[in-house]
């Protein structure tokens, strides 16, 4: 039963990828989301892994005659990882189902998404280097084909860039896996580091360097980060969500699983990686701040989140990896929420430019998803990412080395920049850009008959045409809140900290709900930001009106103004964060 379930988790999505289009073709008149139904079954299978015995379950598959093995083990907290990733795949598949069926190669996208789930499951379950490589190569190939599915030349160029950046280092790493197999007699992830160390420094360097470069590319750390941005900009919105919400975080998972092999526990190398990752997060934040495409912003934010998680994985104490895993999981949920929100918004306004997002045309679930996703990535207190960042900074300070301090300072700097960038999305929504649609066009025409005007008004909102996406977004918003509650206590026990985050569970939920509600009300209520001043006492309005006029629809937001405003707030936030961390360190130390 155990072995069959684990093998099913690998084979099931592949089967779904092949069978679902056939069923969809034969049951076309019913318009059932067959892929999503398949993902539900896979989610049930993933949940069933919680019932597996707690000890290691290793399934060895004789992949080929020459001793090829596929070791799958569930000894780590794999069930939670599998379930989370199954939820995200289900969310993307369900949200994009109608959209995909309306587009030419949409069904192929849904099937490739199922193939990517095989890759994700293999990445989590792999017990040896070859199985892990297999998962990652399937992932990068499916992502490449997804990007190229629009069959445009920019898509082709981006696909080549993604494939070359990810797979060229991986192919070299594959060669080093064979060398490791030959020299140490094993490719088991747990056994390899100690075996390689016994080979001597020169041999170990030759074997380990390709793996290190491959994981840097996978986790989108500088200077091998560009594939994320290029791929997200070139692909359709659902593809960008898949890259940002799944592929990049899975790169982080690959980093976490291979960091022991790639560094062999060398502290200097680990510190250098932590600094590189923190620098990458800073770069990503700066990139996101100047990016004009909404999907590009999403890609930069994904890069930043995973880079910050990598800082945790490269921190040589138990708190670092704990913060990394929490940051990665919550980041994946927030990125998927934000990404699907952007998908709906882009669909509604028919443009990918961030400045073109208009609250006029976006439904409330989309607005809420954009707000909550951005705030969760910021990270605002109450969201899991905030707890992760708190623990991360604490672990870097506790490291007690200059490298740890540098990485900690860079992490705080990255938090500043990433927050400013993440908040660009809800800020953009306050700008009230009014795109020209049939409705607005008809409204603006002086002589239109009543019947024509009524017909135009009766047209459905573009956002309403998206089918399941509203429901999915609501579920994801709730999930963001839940992740803020549940893992914090679990993480506390894991990291040996009594209460790692200041936010109590109820406060987390309350903050999420209140922030979401306020954002929605603010966005929905004031089509013209200056109208806000009308609700205030007369004496206060002059200066405020002047301030709010900076946000007038016809004018671009002054980035320096927003950045300055954010810096003040973030200063308070980081002061609270550091104060909290240092206080806890003092108590625990």
């Amino acid at each position, binding site marked *: 039963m155990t072995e069959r379930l684990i093998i099913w988790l690998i084979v099931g999505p592949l089967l779904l990828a092949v069978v679902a289009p056939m069923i969809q073709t034969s049951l076309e008149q019913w318009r059932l989301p067959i892929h999503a139904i398949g993902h539900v079954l896979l989610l049930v299978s993933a949940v069933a892994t919680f019932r597996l015995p707690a000890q290691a379950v290793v399934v060895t598959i004789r992949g080929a005659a020459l001793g090829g093995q*596929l070791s799958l083990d569930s000894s780590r907290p794999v069930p939670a990882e599998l379930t989370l990733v199954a939820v995200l795949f289900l969310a993307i598949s369900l949200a994009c189902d109608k959209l995909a069926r309306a587009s030419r190669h949409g069904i192929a996208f849904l099937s490739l998404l199922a193939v990517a789930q095989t890759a994700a499951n293999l990445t989590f379950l792999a017990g040896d280097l070859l199985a892990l490589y297999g998962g990652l190569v399937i992932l990068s190939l499916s992502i*490449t084909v997804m990007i190229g599915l629009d069959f445009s030349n920019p898509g082709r160029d981006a*696909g080549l860039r993604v494939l*070359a950046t990810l797979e060229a280092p991986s192919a070299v790493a594959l060669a080093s896996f064979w*060398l490791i197999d030959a020299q140490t007699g094993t490719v088991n992830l747990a056994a390899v580091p100690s075996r390689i160390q016994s080979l001597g420094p020169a041999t170990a360097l030759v074997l380990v360097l390709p793996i290190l470069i491959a994981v840097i590319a996978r986790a989108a750390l500088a200077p091998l980060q560009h594939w994320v941005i290029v791929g997200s900009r070139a692909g359709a919105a659902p593809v960008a969500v898949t890259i940002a919400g799944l592929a990049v975080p899975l790169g982080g998972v690959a980093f976490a699983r291979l960091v022991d092999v790639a560094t062999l526990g060398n502290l200097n190398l680990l510190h250098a990686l932590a600094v590189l990752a923190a620098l990458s997060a800073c770069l990503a934040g700066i990139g996101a701040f100047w990016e004009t495409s909404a999907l590009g912003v999403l890609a930069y934010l994904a890069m930043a989140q995973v880079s910050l998680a990598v800082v945790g994985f490269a921190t040589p104490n138990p708190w670092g990896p704990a913060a990394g895993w929490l940051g990665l999981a919550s980041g994946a949920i927030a990125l998927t929420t934000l990404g699907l929100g952007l998908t709906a918004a882009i669909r509604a306004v028919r443009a990918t430019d961030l400045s073109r997002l208009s609250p006029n045309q976006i439904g409330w679930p989309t607005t809420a998803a954009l707000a909550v996703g951005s705030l969760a990535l910021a990270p605002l207190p109450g969201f899991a990412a905030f707890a992760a960042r708190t623990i991360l900074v604490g672990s870097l300070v506790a490291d007690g080395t200059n490298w740890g301090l540098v990485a900690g300072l860079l992490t705080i700097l990255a938090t500043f920049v990433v927050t400013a960038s993440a908040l660009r999305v809800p800020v953009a929504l306050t700008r009230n850009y009014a795109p020209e649609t049939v409705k607005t066009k008809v409204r603006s025409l002086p002589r239109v008959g009543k019947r024509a005007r009524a017909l135009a008004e009766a047209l459905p909102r573009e956002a309403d045409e998206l089918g399941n996406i509203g429901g999915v977004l609501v579920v994801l918003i709730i999930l963001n809140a839940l992740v803020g509650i549940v893992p914090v206590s679990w993480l506390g026990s894991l990291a040996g900290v009594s209460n790692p985050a200041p936010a109590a569970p109820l406060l987390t939920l309350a903050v999420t709900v209140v922030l979401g509600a306020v954002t929605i009300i603010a966005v929905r209520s004031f089509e013209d930001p200056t109208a806000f001043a009308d609700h205030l006492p007369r004496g206060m309005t002059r200066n405020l009106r002047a301030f709010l006029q900076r946000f007038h629809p016809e004018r671009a937001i002054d980035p320096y103004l927003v950045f300055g405003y954010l810096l003040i707030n973030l200063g308070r936030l980081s002061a609270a964060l550091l104060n909290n961390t240092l206080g806890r360190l003092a108590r625990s130390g």
Partner: protein
Amino acid sequence: MPPADAVSNSVSGLLATPSAASSPLFDGLIGPIIPGFFGVDELSLAILIGLAALGALLILSTPATGDFFRYLFMLLFFLTCALGVITATHVVTFFVAWEITSLFAWGIGQIKGLPDDGAEEGVVPYHAAGALGSFAMLLGLGLFAIDGHGLALAPLPATARLGPAPYLILVGIILKTFGILSEGWQLRPGRRFTIAGATLAGVGVLVVGLYPFFRFFGPVLGPVSNWRSTALLAMGILTILAALAALGEADYRRALSYGAFSQFALLGTVYLVGSPAATTAAVIGGIADAFAFTGLFLCLSAAEEATAEVFLPRVGGLAQRLPITASLFAVCAFSILGLPPLGGFAADQLIGVAAQTGGFLPIFWMVVIGLTLLYLARLFVSIFLGELHGPVHPERRLPVLLLSTGVIGTLVLLGFFATDLLALLAPAARAMTG
């Protein structure tokens, strides 16, 4: 070096343990056919198995060409002569069979779809490579016969003086292989589906290039080692140059031909390392690559038939019209890169064992595998993704599906039966390397 008990995987075990190296599959197949002229040993039997499967695949492909009988007859002649090359144990029979095989390879390359279809680009300079190769081989074999004091393709004593014979034979094999591959890209068969490229890059390279290389630089010249470092250097440089050429070439058939040549040179380099693992890795890799390149060239031929274009800037988006072809291309590319459970992975695992002795091989191999991925990725993305250019004929589903099943099935089977091939080759490899 690792502790002795650490190296315990099955590959090393099979190579090191004499008792493990036997397979009942091949009992009674080894021995002379015509004593003194033709015979079968372990190396030729392994190549023959590959040849039989490749021949079956190619014959299966001939109905899709629209010129069934001409291809079938040429193929039968070509495969018969290839059988002669592989079983030859005499210098004269080898050279005659090698030349006639090359002639039929050229003949397959010259088959046009219809009499008024297309136009040839001309003969020089690539066809000249084959002719020069023949001349170098003839000269080399002559010197070998004089220096070796006989015409049998038997191991030479370690003290034998060889002069320039090994270098001439090496140049002959390299030029002939390059010439064979160039026949594929010089072809303009009226833009119809052709098996010429697949035959030449698969069976052609295996029989005309790799097998003579394995035969001469293994069992025959192996005991004399003064030529080895020069040959190793030459093959190493050729590997990198050909891979770079594949990366920069705009004609996709030429690019893949350069890729096939790079893999040929890589396997030659690995073979020249001379350890049992290296020897078996090169032979198994040669067979696996022959299948993979057969599949890749069939894909390119389908692409050429669909678009009537061979230049990468003028094609694109073919995955829309040729989805099965695109999938076959991806699988064959993965086999070349060594992804389990396809045939190429067995070779890569063995190369890993061969490279554990250190030296230049590990880093060289990593560089080549990276370049190989880059040119294969470039070809895949450029041909199958992006915008469609001009009219594209739809895929002929049934023939392509049959071919894909055949090629992929064989690659998977090769992965699973690699142990048997290893068991067959291990005693010969141990004997060859002392």
